[in-house]
């Protein structure tokens, strides 16, 4: 799934410019880091891609979808093709690891047997099968993040959005999470990830998009932090 930002600005009321005139193009299968200081507009950029926010100016297209002109009723179908992982995990506290992952497929009316098979597959992929009956509050930060990744993978998305997925994790756990993200990318899925982690960015040398006060100040292939 390719992503195109054309002259995108996002102004929050009354007049806080979170993003100013952003033009970027991300091709299918790319791995892109979005970096910048706190408040630079990283999360706003990712939330525009997931259509939690709408641009104040400009247009955003993701795959065949024009996010600005998209009908409300099409939003859920678009989001099913976008895996989302957030720093705060966004897991449902009352559900177990298995249920958190299964319910994404249930919303698409996937038959129970297929839900079980796919849930088992993605839980194994993130190495949490033994903890499938635990609830989020019984898991470590890393395990919660892996659960969130498994949930994002459940629908086999074409685009993976990760908003500081290693933000709350120690070095080793963060490295585990990154391994999973690279394996997802290796399968042809576009990954856009915001991060503050210099080590990760510098050691992997992927495309780097840097924001500063809402402006795009760098877009570099194989860049450093």
């Amino acid at each position: 799934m390719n992503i195109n930002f054309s002259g995108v600005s996002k102004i929050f009321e009354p007049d806080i410019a979170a993003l100013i005139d952003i033009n970027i193009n991300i091709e299918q299968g790319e791995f892109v880091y979005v970096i910048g200081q706190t408040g630079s507009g990283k999360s706003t950029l990712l939330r525009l891609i997931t259509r939690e926010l709408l641009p104040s100016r400009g247009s955003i297209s993701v795959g065949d979808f024009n996010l600005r002109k998209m009908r409300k009723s099409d939003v859920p179908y678009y989001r099913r093709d976008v895996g989302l992982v957030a720093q705060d995990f966004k897991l449902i506290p009352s559900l177990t690891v298995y249920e958190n992952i299964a319910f994404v497929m249930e919303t698409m009316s996937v038959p129970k047997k297929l839900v079980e098979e796919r849930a088992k597959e993605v839980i194994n992929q993130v190495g949490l099968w033994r903890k499938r009956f635990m609830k989020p509050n019984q898991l470590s930060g890393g395990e919660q993040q892996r659960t969130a990744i498994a949930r994002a993978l459940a629908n086999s998305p074409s685009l993976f959005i990760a908003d500081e997925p290693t933000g709350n994790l120690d070095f080793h756990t963060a490295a585990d999470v990154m391994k999973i993200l690279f394996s997802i990318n290796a399968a042809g899925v576009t990954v856009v990830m915001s991060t503050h982690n210099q080590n990760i960015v510098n050691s992997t040398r992927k495309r780097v998009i840097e924001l500063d006060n809402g402006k795009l100040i760098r877009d570099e292939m194989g860049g450093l932090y």
Partner: protein
Amino acid sequence: MTTLKYVLRDMFRLLIHHWVLGLLTLITAGVMLWILGITTLFSLNLENLLLRLESELTVQAYLVRDNTLNIEEIAEKIQKLEYVYTMKIYSPSDSLAKLQEKMGSHSKALDMLGENPIPYNFEIHVHKAEEVEKLVEELRAMPEVDDIVYAGMVVRRISALSRISSRVALIMFILSVIITALVVYNTIHISLYSRREEIGIMYLVGATKSYIASPFVLEGTLLAFFGALIAVGGIIGTYFPGIILLQTNLPVLNSSLITDKNTIFRFCALLAGFGATLGWVCSYLVVSRFINSITRPE
């Protein structure tokens, strides 16, 4: 089918999670719908009684004693009056015979009168009690009419009672509907509020609004429906014993009371359907409003 299974499972989760609130909603809805049902039945019975009384109300118009009067012409004139429903002509001899029959063994007293004092007269029925006064006014305007006899006070009281009973029934109906609707609305709103984060996540990972809304709407519909079933149980448990009590103590009311079981069961089915519809409408409104507010992009 798969979606229905998931929706039903989520709905039962909601009911279990908020069982105290659900129980309170069920009881309140039950009591309010019982009040609504009983008030409606009371009103229908009263309406029946009033209709019977109204159908028995007559206006007796006596003509002036004049042998030159053309009775058929006058009858035609009266028949054309706006509020006349049915009319019967009594000749002086018919009237006397009727009076004698009514007086039974005392009818010999009438012989003392010598000549028959009763003129030609008309017994007129109207549709509604409130029309009697208007008809009397029209009759008074006719020079051929000498005297009019009717139960004026009874007419006024029946009309007033009929108006009051309709208004009370309407007020009770509106109040019961509003309270039931508010209780269901509130319960579903609390359910939604307690799961607002979950709803946001569900929408974010691709659940449609209708999928998210269905368990909540179903929960509201079921609570109101089961509340209505409680009301139906209450109605069956109180209405029939009440009717038996009235029939025993006030036999005069017998022909005016609704005693047919099929009618009452049909009424109860209607009440249960009404409860479910009310629950559906309230939950649908609150759920759509809530979900739209938390899923709207900034």
